[in-house]
């Protein structure tokens, strides 16, 4: 069975990093725990995903379960911080993560939500033949070892009228100062050692790599933090950016 596949069997995920995040699994759901930053940006990123879906498929923006009848895949789902909301938004969601510990934590937390969680790599999943209307891949790309193979698999998994939503840190001096020095070392709002700055990707590099995989980027927005307001989306992509892509 594919779901028994060990993280090490995946070619595109760095095994050392997978082990690191697995160790954090039980702490994931504590809003004041080591994933505090993810909890804080979750409303913003879910709002972004929702808007993108409404635009892509012309949905009713006031609907409560706007993703009803759609299949979604959350890549690098961790303990389900994004997966559970996508399920409540009505999507039939599959959450995958390379770390089996994360999947165990996610399953334990899901309660009655009808989510399928699997510890499987995207390449293996792509070989199974299913496709998804929505694929989310947030704060994952910077941890991927072989991006071309990873994006090719995502392209295979994406339905013809599907939508791919990603977010990832930019590779700039400011992102180094903010994420590595500020957030990891000083504030400790992100676990230390979670990131390898040299693996961060710049928006134009990513756009080109996705194009090579048959995915056209349809929009990019930056996420920044403002005192008094908190996290906001805008044109400033110097620290972290969100984007959407569709099959070319």
């Amino acid at each position: 069975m594919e779901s028994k596949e060990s993280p090490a069997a995946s070619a595109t995920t760095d095994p050392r990093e997978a082990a690191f995040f697995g160790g954090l699994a039980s702490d994931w759901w504590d809003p004041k725990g080591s994933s505090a930053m993810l909890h804080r940006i979750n409303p913003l990123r879910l709002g972004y995903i929702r808007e993108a879906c409404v635009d892509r498929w012309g949905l009713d923006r006031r609907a409560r379960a706007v993703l009803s009848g759609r299949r979604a895949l959350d890549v690098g789902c961790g303990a389900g911080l994004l997966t559970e909301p996508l399920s409540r938004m009505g999507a039939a969601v599959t959450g995958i993560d390379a770390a089996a510990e994360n999947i165990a934590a996610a399953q334990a937390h899901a309660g009655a939500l009808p989510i399928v969680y699997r510890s499987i790599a995207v390449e293996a999943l792509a070989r199974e033949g299913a496709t998804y209307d929505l694929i989310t891949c947030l704060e994952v790309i910077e941890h991927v070892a072989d991006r071309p193979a990873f994006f090719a698999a995502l392209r295979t998994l994406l339905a013809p009228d599907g939508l791919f939503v990603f977010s990832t840190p930019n590779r700039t001096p400011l992102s180094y100062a903010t994420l590595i020095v500020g957030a990891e070392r000083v504030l400790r709002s992100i676990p230390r050692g979670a990131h390898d700055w040299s693996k961060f990707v710049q928006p134009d590099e990513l756009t080109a790599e996705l194009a090579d995989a048959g995915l056209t980027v349809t929009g990019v927005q930056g996420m920044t933090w403002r005192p008094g307001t908190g996290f906001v989306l805008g044109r400033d992509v110097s620290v972290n950016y969100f984007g959407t892509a569709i099959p070319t």
Partner: protein
Amino acid sequence: MQHDVIIIGGGLVGMTLALALDAHGVTSAVVDAADLGATTTSEFDGRVSAIASASARMFRAIGLGGVLDKHGGAIDGIRVTDGLSPLNLHFDAAEGDAGPLGWMVENRLLRTALLEAQAKAAGLTLHAPARAVVERTKAGVTATLGDGTVLGAPLVVAADGRRSALREAAGIRASRWTYPNVALVTMIEHADEHGGVAAEIFYPSGPFAVLPMRDPHRSAIVWTVDEGDAPGYLKLGPRGLSAEIARATGGYLGDLQVIAPPSSYPLSFHHAGSYVAERLALIGDAAHGIHPIAGQGLNMGLRDVAALTEVLVDAVRTGLDLGAPAVLDRYDRWRRVDNMAVAAATDTLNQLFALKGRAPAAVRRLGLAAVERIAPLKRRFMAEARGETGDRPKLLLGELV
């Protein structure tokens, strides 16, 4: 029974929240200790509220416009004077073109309208009179009623008024002080028409407000008097009181009579240090109470409703846990600072007008004259009266979220 939100307190603010949520398909259970049917009589609450135009837009957006159209008295202008000095500051709705600055409505009619709407709201269950034992944990909230019914939700909202038991239980501190005044409230009938003008006449003991009702010959009186003088006024009898009120207004309404038994309310200020705690949000008087000098108390609560509704509707639509700190923090950030500013301004206004002596009087007159002449300043005050300052929630613009 599982709901999206449990609301403790079905007063003007709590019930409006429940209806605003229902208008967006967000379900709630409202628990109130009082028999709400009995709160619609004038004996229970003889007060009248000024519904600022922004609050009125929310009422209309959620289908409560009828009570304003049927019973509301439009406020087309506000005249502020320092005692009976001829210098005054006049705000006229006609200076903008956005309609009345607000509406005067009797609280009991508002309550009746809210209860009627509640009876028709599909996603709203009311438990009253009932008391709840509320338990908040990391995982969720339960409220156990006297009859054993257990309500569950990811979030509980405290709309239980100024002595909020939920606020106390959460250990949220409120800064507070009492004013050495009380508000006397009554209704008058007068020979001359009020012309839709609300008058705020400032006396050393506090403001004397004359608020235009729908009937052009009727006005509500909110009179701030020294604590010690209140019993005397209350004992005066209709004739004596009418004479005192005529004197305080300077006679601009012609002959007048008091037509409702006066009641008195102690005045105090309180402001919660935080509007949120684990799976808890405070709204209305549970979060803040200000001097009724500017008729803003209820309106501040209604702005809480608009902001919290937007925050919760956004959260529901993005599948978030309604009690998650990231959700609640947005509400706290949005409302607490804004309310603090209104509270501080109101208190300053009150302090300024309460000062006795010639120098403060000169400052006040200079201030009134300056505001009258400086257009941007005046627009700012008008916006404040309309409830249009700050980053406004969609409902206050008259739009659903």
